[in-house]
């Protein structure tokens, strides 16, 4: 056995923002150790949230170019808003689901885990933003863009789920099944939040503001996206 594998990952104490991002990307086990040990610096959560918002906004801008520059600017704001609002709505369920699943997190740990997962999704979205941009400026098909955006987002989510699995190496967190199940809730809430803040990729109808303001469920909204012609 490799002796290094027996050494538990040192808790990652972020002091500089870039070092923290590097930790999420290159040593997620260390960030997981910091969460499990509740050893993050006081500004850790705030920094993770700021970066998560910026990354989501950048990705939103890239896909929003499908609808032109004004749409891209609004899509950047909406993407960050979707990420933040979905996390806020889902934080109570992350707290309860993790505990019921057998991995009890304090509220601060819950917040740190949620922020880190969001930042991890954001990092992956940044990595795939050039791909999204390439297609957003070279297609007129909204259904294609919707499918592409969802594929990219789900890919990023898979890595966030994988990151939460790193908690398994720590005492008291061997059963993170509740946290994995929580991602289903997060996905559904994000879909509905996207519907609530629609349209993301296209202009609103004349006379409307940035959002349509009409109530609709996400299944009906995504269904309508597939009948749209630019």
């Amino acid at each position, binding site marked *: 056995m490799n002796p290094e594998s027996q050494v538990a990952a040192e808790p990652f104490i972020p002091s500089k923002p870039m070092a923290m991002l590097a930790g999420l990307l290159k040593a997620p086990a260390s960030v997981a150790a910091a969460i499990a040990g509740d050893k993050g610096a006081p500004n850790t959560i705030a920094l993770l949230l700021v970066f998560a918002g910026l990354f989501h906004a950048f990705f939103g801008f890239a896909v929003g170019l499908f609808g032109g520059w004004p749409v891209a600017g609004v899509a950047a704001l909406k993407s960050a808003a979707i990420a933040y609002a979905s996390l806020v709505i889902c934080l109570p369920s992350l707290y309860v689901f993790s*505990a019921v699943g*057998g991995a009890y997190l304090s509220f601060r740990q819950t917040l740190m885990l949620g922020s880190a997962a969001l930042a991890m999704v954001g990092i992956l979205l940044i990595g795939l933003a050039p791909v999204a941009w390439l297609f957003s400026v070279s297609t007129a098909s909204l259904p294609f863009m919707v499918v592409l955006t969802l594929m990219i987002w789900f890919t990023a989510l898979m890595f966030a789920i994988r990151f939460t699995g790193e908690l398994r190496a720590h005492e008291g967190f061997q059963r993170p099944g509740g946290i994995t199940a929580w991602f289903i809730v997060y996905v559904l809430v994000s879909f*509905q939040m996207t519907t609530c803040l629609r349209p993301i990729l296209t202009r609103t109808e004349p006379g409307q503001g940035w959002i349509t303001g009409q109530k609709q469920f996400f299944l009906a909204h995504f269904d309508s996206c597939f009948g749209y012609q630019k």
Partner: protein
Amino acid sequence: MSLSPAKLLANRNNFWAVARDGRLGWDDLLALAAFIVPGCAIYGAVLAGWRSPVLSLYVAIKLPLLFLATTAIVSVFNWMLASLLRAGLSFKATLLVVFASMSITSWILLALAPVSFFFMISGAPAAGTDSELRYAHNFMLTTHILILAVAGVAGYAAMLGGLRTMVNPGCPVGLLFVAWLGTSAFVGCQMAWILRPFVGSPFYDVAFMRPDCLDRNFYEFVFGDVIPNLLRGGL
């Protein structure tokens, strides 16, 4: 010894160990009940909120009532069955296991209440065509069924864990659990049928209970209407 629902959530194994040692009293049972009632009431208020504030208030009363009334009806049978299977559970311990699992269910319902509320305010229209209202009703109904199912499964999974810790060696835990689950489901379905409406159809007037709630039972409806209709291909 006092264990709050918060401690039950944080460390279930410790809760069951303390319960097995007989260190939990009636005050602990009351503490769990005092958590279950507002927990279910809050979710109940959200559950019917899309239909009307009045129905929201009614369901805030009816959902805890459904849980507690079902427990009240099956608890003596649960205790007798546990005794017959030599589980070594007192009546108080029987109630404790059931109330603890209900508390876990209530935790899940409370945690998902903001999600449910968000779906309600962002997706369900207050007015619209029949088709729009029917779609909204079906979507809300499906959402709540899923949430209640998840909460119920989590609660009963906790109950199984608790029984495994608390019963005497040699007691068939699986049989005891399935019997308790089956009895609760059998009675719970009928209780829910009597106490309907919960989600509230937009095509019926708002009422605390339907006027015909005692005319026939849930199983008459399923075996007399639903299954024959399915077998006829919906004709």
